[in-house]
């Protein structure tokens, strides 16, 4: 059996995953996620990495009862569309029950296990968002 996900790909992306690094275009000024070496809006290659805010607003979400293989233990999976101000991100929501969730709530990024690669004995981490706990 081969590994499902490449270790080098994961290794290269891990900082983007953990620190929520997006891209900022120095030509048109727009911010985007995921980051890449060319601006998706004006196609300039004059882009720089930018740390995205870790707190955003939940614009919308869907509850997935038939997710792709590898996410069974986390089912149902809640997938959120989150507004981070200058850009948006699509990510899993965590630490929240279906009753507690609603559009418009504040959510914050956390590092969580995304999936396990049992054949390789690896655990892959990434970003998820959870409701901001108000005190």
């Amino acid at each position, binding site marked *: 059996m081969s590994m499902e*996900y490449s270790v080098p*790909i994961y290794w290269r*992306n891990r900082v983007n995953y953990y620190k929520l690094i997006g891209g900022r275009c120095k030509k048109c000024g727009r911010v*985007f*996620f*995921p980051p890449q070496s060319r601006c*998706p*809006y004006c196609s300039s290659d004059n882009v720089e990495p930018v740390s995205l805010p870790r707190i955003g607003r939940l614009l*919308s*979400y*869907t*509850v*997935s*009862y*038939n*997710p*792709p*293989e*590898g*996410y*069974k233990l*986390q089912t149902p*999976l809640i*997938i959120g*569309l989150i507004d981070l101000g200058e*850009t*948006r*991100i*699509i*990510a*899993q929501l965590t630490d929240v029950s279906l009753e507690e969730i609603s559009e418009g709530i504040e959510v914050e990024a956390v590092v969580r296990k*995304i*999936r396990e690669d049992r054949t390789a004995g690896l655990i*892959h981490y*990434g*970003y998820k968002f959870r409701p901001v706990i108000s005190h």
Partner: protein
Amino acid sequence: MGVYVKSYGMTKLGRSYNKSLYDLVFDALSDMEGLDKPDMIIVSTVFTAATIGQLDIASKITEIAGFKGVPAIRVETGETSGHNSVLMAFRLLAGGMYDNILVIGAEKMTEFVAARMYKEISKVFDSEYESYMGVGHASLHALAMKEYMKRYGKTHKELAYWPALMHKNAADNPYAALRFPVDQDSVVKANVISDPITLLDSYPLVDGAGALLLTRSPNSALAEVKYAYSSTDVKPVTHKEDLLDLPAARRVYSKIKNENGLDLSVDLYDVTDQFTITPYLILESIGIAERGKSVDMANQGVFDRDGEIPINVTGGLKARGHPFGATGVYQIAELSGILSGTFQIQIPETKEAMIIGVNGLGSNASGILLGRR
């Protein structure tokens, strides 16, 4: 010099446990009339590297087809693979490079459990930031569907006119996978896949193979391929300016319209409708419907078989089935058959038909304009 569809062949879509991909290709080719040795073979398939573990599958399929020695390549652009295969064939033929090209679309989507296929399918979106995070094909379309319903104040039941119509249209398509009727209420009440998308808002996983012989000779051809065009757009969904807009589809439609006269009178359309939301997004992006109005038009019967603008008259991806790499080939085969009066479904007076295929939420779009020979 024109380009023509000389012949087509297909297998009935569904689960074929006792047939391999190659058996299905063999059956589809046996279903064709007047198949002589082509100058080239273009194979359209998306998942075969994962599902049956074969690379350079074009050569193996060419051997099965009985045309050993003929040059063969594979085209893969996700859900638009079949459309883009025909586009490549169209360009090569129109440019006079070849006289006959055989396009074969084939997919085997029931070799593994559904969850495994869902993982493969999720890769039509950005694999490192969307599929890696567990975000599936249905979930991204679910976010678009929710946004649409919110922005335009439409209900799930109103949107469900589409899948109900597709099941009705598939009833007399002998190649269709889902030939039973469903009503709008049962679509809404079916098991939820990724809310609001239910099982009946979604396409079935099927096996199937289809083939088209394209030629430069109009003699005894079924239909003319009048034009073909394709375009691309951003890959990650979060790079899109608007979740509900498909600029690549709009570019394809405008180009085909402009190149063929502004009074283009298309009688039939066939568009990607793997989920209930998708055809509405396409129709509004290309301008057949105003923003937020396509659902009302559907409910008024405009897109019915006997309506003003018939769309997906053979059941769509929704009910015919969506064998990814083969889907475009099925659409073009069925519409060629309707234009020539040889298909089991007859739409009299059809002169022009347009197919618009879209991958995911618009990263690739491809359009084919067919006319009567």
